[in-house]
């Protein structure tokens, strides 16, 4: 297990290196010049050249690439070209908002999908099952840019229960978390239903029943636990996506998270900030995958990661 952990941590480095290289090349290839945006309409060609030189943008791309990694190795993500703060400061100001929304959405999705998926499996072919499948169809079909405003109109305007947008306490989190959660809950409900149905017909479940175990014990110890593997992979994949920030939901709900920040940085060609955001997103994915592997082992002790 220890060896496995070391291997995974070592794998982190080439993964991040690859992601950052790709982003470095892409942001420099897309049209648009940050210097033009920074200096405005009235700057002379000489002023622009001077700023380009002081930012190091006059250097060949290979040298810019090298110095970016040298600074990164020293823990320096650089400074935003527009906001007068370091990239690390800007990202750390936005990261809690993204984490809050991701956790809120994840928990909501689990709270909706677990009972619904289990109910659908147990009552297969009956109205509860059909209702769960209908919910999952709707959840998958409704886009966030439509669902978000709909929830706002109903809960914030008509019923007056929540604020419309922005970040604050729990009441602010409710609608954006629900918007993100419904799509996820739809997928999870389906996966859980199918996994449970498969597990319910396995020999070991029949054996457990034959041994005279209580139905509750059969469910919790044998059926649910065996159905969890596929659910854990989907949950972690979705959680990784959430940590990358959800542009549409963050924009609709004026949520100051990483998704909006990344897009704003791309639009203004704020190279250091784009690279910083991508680094954080890549690290989130790698960490989520890492913890998922650990979770697999907890769910299914038969899984071995070598000695």
């Amino acid at each position, binding site marked *: 297990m220890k060896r496995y952990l070391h291997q995974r941590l070592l794998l982190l480095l080439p993964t991040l290196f690859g992601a950052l290289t790709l982003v470095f090349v892409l942001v420099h290839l897309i049209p648009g010049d940050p210097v033009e945006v920074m200096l405005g309409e*009235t700057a002379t060609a000489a002023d622009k050249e001077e700023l380009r030189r002081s930012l190091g943008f006059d250097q060949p791309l290979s040298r810019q690439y090298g110095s970016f990694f040298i600074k990164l190795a020293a823990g320096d993500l650089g400074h935003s070209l527009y906001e007068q703060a370091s990239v690390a400061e800007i990202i750390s100001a936005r990261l809690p908002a993204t984490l809050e929304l991701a956790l809120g959405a994840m928990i909501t999705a689990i709270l909706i999908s677990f009972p619904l998926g289990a109910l659908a499996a147990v009552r297969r072919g009956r109205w509860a099952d059909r209702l769960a499948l209908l919910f999952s169809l709707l959840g998958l079909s409704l886009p966030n840019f439509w669902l978000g405003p709909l929830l706002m109109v109903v809960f914030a305007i008509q019923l007056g229960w929540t604020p419309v947008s922005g970040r604050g306490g729990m009441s602010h989190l409710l609608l954006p978390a629900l918007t993100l959660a419904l799509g996820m809950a739809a997928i999870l409900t389906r996966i859980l239903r199918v996994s449970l149905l498969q597990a319910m017909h396995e020999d070991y479940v029949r054996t457990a029943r034959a041994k005279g175990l209580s139905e509750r014990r059969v469910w919790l110890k044998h059926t649910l636990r065996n159905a969890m593997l596929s659910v854990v992979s989907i949950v972690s994949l979705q959680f990784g996506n959430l940590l990358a920030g959800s542009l549409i939901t963050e924009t*609709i709900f*004026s949520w100051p998270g990483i998704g909006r920040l990344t897009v704003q940085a791309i639009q203004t060609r704020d190279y250091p900030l784009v690279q910083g955001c991508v680094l954080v997103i890549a690290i989130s994915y790698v960490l989520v995958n890492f913890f998922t592997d650990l979770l697999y082992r907890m769910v299914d002790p038969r899984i071995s990661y070598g000695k």
Partner: protein
Amino acid sequence: MVVGIESYPLQLDPRYATDANSVRLDNLIYNSLLRADERSQLRPELAETWRMVDDRTYLFDIRKGIKFHNGQPLTAADVKFSYESILDPNNHSPKRGLLRPLHSVEQTNTFQLRFRLTVPHAPFVEQFTLGVVPASSTGALSSQPPPGSGPFILQAKESGEKITLKVNPDYWEGKSSLDGLVFKTVPDAMVRVLEFKKGSIDFMQNDLEPDVLPWLKSNTDADIDAYQGTTFQYIGMNLTHPILKHAKVRQALAQAIDRDRLIRHVLKDTATAANSLLSPLNWAYAASARRWPYDPEHAKQLLDEAGFRDPDGDGPLARFRLSFKTTNIDLRRRIAEALKEQLQQVGIELEIRSYEWGTFYSDVKKGNFHLYSLAWVGVMDPDIFFQIFHSNSAPPDGDNRGRYSNPEVDRLLEQGRMTNETAARKLIYKRVQEILAEDLPYVPLWWWKNVIVKKPSIRGFSAYPDGDLISLKEVSLRSH
């Protein structure tokens, strides 16, 4: 009072601020020597008096007794520092280019300053509206903007979310009756409208989809008013293009567009058809500049005369095909679709290409376009024509992106900036506008109106043509 804005202000230090929301907030936090009033006329603000000593020297007497928000008195030394820190090449201020004609700023006594220019340059007076910061500020940018001396004090910045200003109780012009202002960033226009309906936003200006205005009228108690603005929307053209280099083709384009119908149906009357870059609110506006009213038959005739006959009359084949670049904002795309449909009627086929802002702007800057549509915002001095249409202003040294060249216009524009007398300048720019209206390096579309949506309890707000929010300092809230 909560003001809903579309994008978070990027930079509040007035020496560096360029985006519209930063500039508008700065005007509430900082004072300047002069300030444009609601008719775009420059009035003294920090200046007690000011005069031109000769055609390149300005003398300012600063008001006494004004203090910065940190309690320091404001003197001529602070004004001098503010300008010199912009001029310092190490600070990379985006406003340095604007101060290019400035030779020196001399402090003659504690409250007097002399600005010397290298050459006579009439439009320089606009630069006396730059915000003044204390001489104790750092020259370079820092994460905390320096204190100002304006009616409101910066209280808190919450990155990406909101900026809170509190009232300056010792403001030299008198304390505002508001306790403070919150500028709340709500990127989605529809959500801003819902926030208004809910009561969590009290005031909005522009950046609303025209379609939501009727809904706001019937579903909220909003006071909605549209005031004539100065923002000028146009179609820019590449004059080096083999088709667009013909003036008759450009004139045909101008006559094939039914501006009134577009304004009525797509923009819901939030604009006025334009004939010049300068709006009628500008002192130099020339009403005599030729208008090109909608006349598709004449447009077809002009195209025939230019040698671009319709190959199959009213059939599906076009006379020629041009690309039209625009941003991927929904309203811009709808305008582009409407233009495409109108130009099709005279046999011109438009291929619409919509891009995200960075790519679009990069293409426009490089001259990589046939046709594109953009707007000029905050136009005050007619010298802007030099930056846009003088033949020496081709990128990277200016914004003559379509490569327009007319020696008479060049001569007039050079003369215009060297002339200090307003009446003489007015005549010069009248001629410039008349020539441009014939040559049509731009097809004028419309001047946008400033749409103000506010709670009825907000009293005393005056709209400014450039969208400035300075009159928020005079606003009061009345319960009803």
